[in-house]
């Protein structure tokens, strides 16, 4: 890429400086290393790893995934190696990568979230935390933290108090008014907001007369959800004081530009990395092509669609 384009692509989110606005979405990029044979990790804006919990989690029984029109439904069950294994075994292997690494975290209780955040705070090589609040709150009978403003506030406040790292809060789309959630997590001290996580959905296998995945319901992702995600970013931008990161169905630079024009400072590429492990880099190249052709920069276009 030409010098001028490099500057035209650079963005900063909560002190995390990125060479371009493309991040990898949590749960779709493993712990980063798995992609080394297929893509240039150095050419990605930031790598967000699989969601980490205090203890390792085995995940759900299968089937865990099913394809849907232009998308997929998943209920992986947040399987992960646990925060300690990540810090000791995965993170050191990423230290030569010239791209910020952001840890995505979740918990079943507020104190779990705080403890995971604390452990990552002292780890070498973590540029920031992304808090996944789309997780059932065990103490509140399994109601998802991210669908209740008061619970979301508690989680984000606890994480904020446990770390000096930049905190990005990742919002669930499964709410009536996303602006209420934006205000709640900003009041709790988040530095940035990413959206959207997957949308709850269901697929039924009509021949067997039962749900297609073992968990019965799952999270919908991929191009099928993109218009919903763009709408939610645009609504969030109407009240947000912190930078937004747009997620949902991005497969090309043009898709990414929709989110940026709607008000996102950066974007994440998720399901597309399954179809092409080099997808994030290609999206960044597509954004570069767009800003070059329009003789402008990403920073100048954030929210340019207006209201």
């Amino acid at each position, binding site marked *: 890429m030409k010098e001028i384009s490099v500057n035209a692509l650079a963005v900063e989110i909560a002190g995390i400086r990125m060479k371009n606005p493309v991040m990898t979405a949590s*749960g*779709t*990029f*493993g712990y980063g290393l*798995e*992609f080394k*044979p*297929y893509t240039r990790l150095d050419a990605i804006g930031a790598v967000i790893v*699989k969601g980490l919990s205090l*203890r*390792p*989690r*085995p*995940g*759900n*029984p*299968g*089937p*865990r*995934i*099913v*394809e849907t*029109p*232009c*998308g*997929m439904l*998943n209920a*992986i069950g947040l*399987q*992960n*190696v*646990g925060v300690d*294994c990540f810090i000791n075994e995965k993170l050191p292997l990423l230290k030569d990568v010239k791209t910020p690494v952001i840890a995505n975290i979740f918990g079943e209780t507020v104190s779990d979230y705080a403890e995971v955040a604390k452990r990552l705070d002292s780890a070498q090589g973590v540029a920031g935390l992304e808090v996944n609040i789309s997780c059932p709150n065990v103490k509140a009978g399994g109601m998802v933290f991210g669908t209740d403003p008061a619970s979301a506030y508690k989680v984000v406040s606890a994480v904020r108090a446990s770390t000096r790292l930049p905190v990005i809060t990742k919002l669930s789309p499964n709410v009536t008014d996303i602006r209420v959630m934006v205000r709640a997590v900003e009041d709790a001290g988040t530095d940035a907001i990413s959206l959207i996580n997957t949308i709850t959905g269901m697929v039924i296998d009509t021949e067997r007369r039962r749900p297609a995945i073992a968990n019965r319901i799952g999270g919908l992702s*991929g*191009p099928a959800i993109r218009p919903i995600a763009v709408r939610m970013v645009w609504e969030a931008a109407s009240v947000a004081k912190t930078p937004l990161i747009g997620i949902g169905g991005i*497969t090309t630079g043009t898709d990414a530009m929709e989110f940026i024009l709607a008000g996102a400072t950066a974007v994440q590429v998720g*399901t597309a*990395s*399954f*179809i*092409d*492990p*080099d997808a994030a880099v290609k999206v960044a190249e597509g954004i570069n092509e767009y800003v070059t052709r329009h003789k402008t920069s990403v920073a100048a276009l954030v929210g340019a669609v207006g209201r």
Partner: protein
Amino acid sequence: MENLDAGIIYNKEVGPGYFLLGLDWRPLAFKPGQFVMLRVSDGLDPLLRRPFGIYRVMSGGNGVELLYQVVGKGTRILSLKRPGERLGVLGPLGNGFTMPPKGARVVMVAGGMGIVPLYPFAHEVRGAVLLYGTRDAAQASVAGDFKELGCPVRHATEDGSLGVKGYVTELLKEELTRDAVVYACGPAPMLKAVAAMAAGSGTQCYVSLERSMACGIGVCLGCAVKGGAHADAENKLYKMVCSDGPVFESKEIDWEAF
């Protein structure tokens, strides 16, 4: 491991709904039992790649052949592709078969399209016997390729049109000696039955499994199967068919949950 576009040299029907796909891609190396993820459409629907075993190196060595059956949307689209068109190929992926110990009597058990990964295996382990279960004689035409390798082939067909009438496990009963090592690939009920028989006779048994896949490289965690009694740490309870497999020793799998 490569991520590239390969050109189609041929894509021809070789049996009822069975297609032999010749690609101008020659992987640097692949192990019998490894597979590729094929992108059957440039569009967004179907979105995900489809997994297919590598059947063999094309005669002349200019590419590889895949053998597939039309079962749904993705394979139907694939069957309509013409020579000269290009397809996204990601692979070779997975672990492939562990070779049998020297002197072992090798028994291959295939059901339907489960025949595919066993061909490159048979190519390396000459003389292994193939027990092949299909719906009817027409579906069993692929067996000719194994006979050319010098493999004795015994057939079981559901309609009795070739070999014994019934399931392939009928044939396995007679082959399950203690010095045997079993290599099986096929539908879930067949694999379950084979694993149970092998466990009963104390025979070593390898199975190649199939699961719906999104990534094929161990990152989406979508293709999980439950590990058997040997599953150790909590986060290893589930194994990924794409990256821990597709080949497992049958005792590694919880067949109750399969």
